């Protein structure tokens, strides 16, 4: 174990020497990797934030049942009885037309309400279904429409579902983009390591003649790839954090203008660890492909 650690430490020193020989090139490569990682990482993070907002709103989908006009107490009572008997509901609330008018007035339309000669609003029921299966909500809405005395049924979660669908689409698009950019990063690392192998050809040949194993030769290049990936991951993290900081205030202002309170969240520790882990893994993959190809050709 001590020998293994000693070998790895030696390889890391040699990898740092590789990076240090061309600091500007290493920095530029890290920035390229960072930008490429920041694009999908930032996009996915924004989508997660959007999902959080929609999730908060969409956790309690509601179905509004509006009764026929003129109001019929017997029909309202029948609907209430049927709702009581339904096992697939979390809760429901009867909103008499008088209460609906009062809510309308309290919502800033006092002037309009006072001008009305009669109350134009119907009796209504606000139903909260159990579960979270959108198909089941649709079935319930259809069932309510067939009941006597029901004029209109409105499924309030429909817009949430559409946004969820959009977010899913965005997530798939960013995942696809991430896969493409990951392949590009492997190619970038492959090429960087290939150039290093070419410039250090003499050192490799001499080392082989002195008894270096393939693993001894491979090790510092793998560490170079991983360190370059790590640097790229750190650059990506900085870029994503800067983006979130820049957008935080405008987004908060926008939320406030809608009477809501929302702040963009920075990536969590687990998300940062994942980002860095993916960056290191991509660097390792590019370096491994490059150095293995070189060793195969040399053999």
């Amino acid at each position, binding site marked *: 174990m001590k*020998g293994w650690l*000693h*070998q790895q430490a*030696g390889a890391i020193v040699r990898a740092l020497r590789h990076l240090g020989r061309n600091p500007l090139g290493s920095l530029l490569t890290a920035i390229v990797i960072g930008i490429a990682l920041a694009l999908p990482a930032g996009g996915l993070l924004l989508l997660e934030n959007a999902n959080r907002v929609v999730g908060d709103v969409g956790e309690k989908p509601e179905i509004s049942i509006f009764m026929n006009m003129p109001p019929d107490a017997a029909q309202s009572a029948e609907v209430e009885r049927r709702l009581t008997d339904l096992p697939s509901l979390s809760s429901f609330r009867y909103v008499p037309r008088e209460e609906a008018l009062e809510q309308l007035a309290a919502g800033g339309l006092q002037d309009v309400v006072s001008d009305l000669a009669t109350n134009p609003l119907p009796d209504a029921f606000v139903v909260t279904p159990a579960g979270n299966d959108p198909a089941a909500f649709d079935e319930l809405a259809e069932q309510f429409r067939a009941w006597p005395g029901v004029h209109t049924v409105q499924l309030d979660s429909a817009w949430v579902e559409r946004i969820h669908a959009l977010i899913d689409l965005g997530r798939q698009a960013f995942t696809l983009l991430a896969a493409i950019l990951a392949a590009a990063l492997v190619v970038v690392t492959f090429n960087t390591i290939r150039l290093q192998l070419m410039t250090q050809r*003499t*050192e490799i*040949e*001499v*080392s*082989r*003649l*002195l*008894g*270096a*194993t*393939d693993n*001894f030769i491979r090790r510092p290049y793998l560490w170079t790839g991983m360190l370059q990936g790590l640097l790229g991951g750190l650059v990506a993290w900085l870029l994503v954090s800067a983006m979130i900081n820049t957008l935080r205030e405008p987004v908060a202002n926008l939320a406030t203008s809608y009477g809501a309170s929302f702040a963009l969240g920075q990536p969590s520790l687990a998300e940062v660890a994942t980002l860095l882990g993916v960056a290191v893994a991509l660097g390792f993959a590019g370096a491994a492909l490059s150095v293995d190809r070189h060793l195969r050709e040399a*053999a």
Partner: protein
Amino acid sequence: MIAFDRVSLHYPGGQGGLTDVSFRLERGELAVLSGHSGAGKTSLLKLIAAIERPSAGTVTVGGEDVGALPRQAIPYLRRNIGLVLQEIRLLLDRSVFDNVLLPLTITGHPPADASRRVQAALERVGLGGRGGEMPLSLSGGEQQRVAIARAVVNRPSILVADEPTAHLDADYAGDIAALFRSFHAAGVTVLVATHDSSLFDDAAPRRLVMSHGQLAEVA
């Protein structure tokens, strides 16, 4: 220690190589390999270090059949052979000390012990105080000494050198030959390919004379 049994080596295109070469060197022997340019001296040395594999016959080094060694085992064979190449091939971006340190880094020697060994090897070749210098600041003869120090720092049981005195003037060549004789005196098996075998006369070496890929004389 080193045995060639009817060894042939054919390069693609039929250029150079060896034909039906047989000889045996015992542990601690000093042998001088001579012959005209293109006679096959370098090919013979490459076979010992498994840089080339024989087309026919058997090359045995330290009891190992070199031709049958799997690729992964070759580095471990080479760690027991000090190799001084015709081209000196020092790493020009490393100090003299770091060049000599390389074989010990490869074998994973502890740093403190490695430093002591490097210093001892440099002193042995007369460059004790020059470890911090860069190779290009040294003369050709001094660079060759660094290459010899690098070859022996791992304390190999076999030392193989390909024209180590080429391109050196007579004084430097004599010094280098004296170094090889001293390693032989210390019990190392030494095989030196050279145009000037007289440099080793006072050690009474075995003489292997190559001609057109064949061993023309063994004395």
